[in-house]
């Protein structure tokens, strides 16, 4: 009886949810196949074409619309996201590991770390740039000041993910390892790390994606050479063409590819057990 009322409501809710989640992307996706170079970033579609994708890779004759200046920015952003991912994850794992024992001042340290994701991004960016220019007197670069700003921002995410994982971690397996004469460092490598690896992957994913499309902090902290989000934003100030949509589709596909890698790595850590369970059933 209740489900007769509840079901349609839930169906509408799910439909709305999916619409808002994927609607923007679907519209962008459709518009990226607009005819070029005359077609603009709006409906109706004059004619379906892959012009803007070819435009992106410089495979069309030169026109009045300049190619997107994203090549170097993309490389920079990827390198920055990778550096940030590695640093934030290592720091996150180490910090979360430290929090397994209650130490003096744990509460203060916890909030100091988490502050990094709470402080408004523009302020952090501006502050970083002021600190570099006026106090430390160093030049701002995407791989120095912006990198630090990114780590400060993503470290708390990695930390919180690892904290949740280690919170449920049964430390008796580590004690078992010690009692077998295995040193704490080797125990971490051989026991703890393999068991928390799914969490480490999640922390890496968080750090990478957050850094890759970080805007407000990077805006002030990155100096002369722009990262990808800044480069794209720069093109908005002139005129918007569907080539940005095409680029958006490409980067989204790239994100899906990353997610797929994450999924595969995640799956690998449980696959072996599953496969053996299946062999067990067949036998």
């Amino acid at each position, binding site marked *: 009886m209740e489900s007769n009322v509840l079901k349609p409501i839930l169906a509408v809710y799910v439909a709305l949810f999916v619409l808002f989640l994927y609607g923007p992307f679907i519209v962008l996706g459709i518009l990226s196949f607009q005819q070029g170079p005359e077609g603009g970033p709006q409906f109706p579609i004059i004619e379906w074409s892959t012009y803007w994708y070819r435009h992106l890779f410089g495979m069309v004759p030169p026109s009045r619309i300049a190619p997107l200046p994203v090549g170097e920015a993309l490389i920079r952003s990827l390198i920055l996201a990778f550096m940030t991912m590695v640093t934030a994850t290592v720091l996150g794992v180490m910090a979360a590991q430290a929090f397994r024992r209650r130490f003096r001042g744990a509460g203060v340290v916890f909030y100091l770390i988490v502050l990094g994701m709470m402080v408004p991004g523009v302020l952090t960016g501006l502050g970083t740039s002021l600190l570099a220019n006026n106090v430390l007197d160093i030049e701002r670069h995407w791989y120095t000041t912006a990198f630090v700003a990114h780590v400060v921002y993503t470290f708390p995410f990695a930390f919180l993910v690892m904290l949740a994982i280690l919170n449920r971690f049964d430390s008796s397996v580590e*004690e078992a390892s010690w*009692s077998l004469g295995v040193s704490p460092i080797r125990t971490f490598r051989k026991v703890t790390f393999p068991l928390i690896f799914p969490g480490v992957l999640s922390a890496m994913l968080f750090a990478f994606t957050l850094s890759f499309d970080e805007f407000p902090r990077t805006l002030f902290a990155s100096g002369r050479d722009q990262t990808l989000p800044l480069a794209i934003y720069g093109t908005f100030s002139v005129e918007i063409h569907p080539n940005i949509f095409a680029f958006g589709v490409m980067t989204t596909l790239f994100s899906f590819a990353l997610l797929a890698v994450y999924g595969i790595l995640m799956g690998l850590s449980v696959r072996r*057990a599953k496969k053996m369970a299946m062999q067990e059933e067949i036998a």
Partner: protein
Amino acid sequence: MTQTGSIFRLEGVTRRYDDLTALDAIDFEAEQNEYISLLGPSGSGKTSLLRIIAGFEKPDQGRVWFQGQDITDLPAHERGIGFVFQNFALFPHLTVFENVAFGLRNNVDTVPGVEIEKRTRDAIEMVGLAGLEDRVPDQVSGGQKQRVALARTLVMQPKLVLLDEPLGALDANLRDRMQIELRAIRERLDVTFLHVTGSETEALAMGDTVAVLNAGKVIQSGTPDEIYDTPASPDVALFLNRFNIFDGTLKGGHFAGPFGDAPVATARQNAQDRYAIRYDRTQIFDPGAKLPGPALTARFRASEYLGSSIIFLFETEDHKTVEVDHHLSFGDPRDLTVDNEYVLSWDPAKAIVFGKEGSK
């Protein structure tokens, strides 16, 4: 039993958690090649004691000696003391074989690959797990997990193995079988087992020596029959779960309790006056029958059939439960009517009495 001297010794080991004293200046010494059961109720500090010997925790005071060496400040991985966990603590990401080989592979000493292979196979064979080497812990039963945990520890050839309620997670059937196997394995190897348990039957069945721990203190230690026949205090008698214990007054060779007045030959020194009589020494009589000793009137409430014996549960006038254990080899049990009154009695010479007037 080969007596070859002390294997480990505790000297005034004290452990506090905030204002709770888990271990209160424990002194204890264990002979080599023994099976020691450490019996204690939950919260008696028995797990703390084990963790301190293993090196997972540090005592607040006191020293721990192992093979003539003070190991109080030695980290766990340098002690060479095995530990078997109640929850087994197997490495879930490794196969049975790799679980057992783990210590040999990752130890500070390099063991040649051939030897690792051989010792691991031998250990797996010994605990009867041959054929399951390639399974992961999730694919073996509770009893098999227990064996893996044991093999993993024994393959390192430790001189001392600590077992923290190792049978607690197993069902009754399996527990009995593992009890026998644990003893058999220990007798085959040159190793001391220190087995912590909350079960009095387990402690008595397995130990060469039984130590009873209560409120952070070892209150008695001795052979199982010493403990069983001559509990040193009412607390020990209580943990053995084999004694009806009564309050009363001990005065001039007589104990006045709910059963009237009973003559007492010898009594043990204790702060409170207590009278203990074993379940299987308590007998059931009809009202008015001739009694061998004191008379305790009680209502029959229920019985529990245990196969070789029956436990009858009675309730006294002051609502205390009294148990009578009737072994079936002594003849068929009496036919009792629930809620009827009977008289319980016993030979007063078999009672164990504690009191301020007691000796020692």
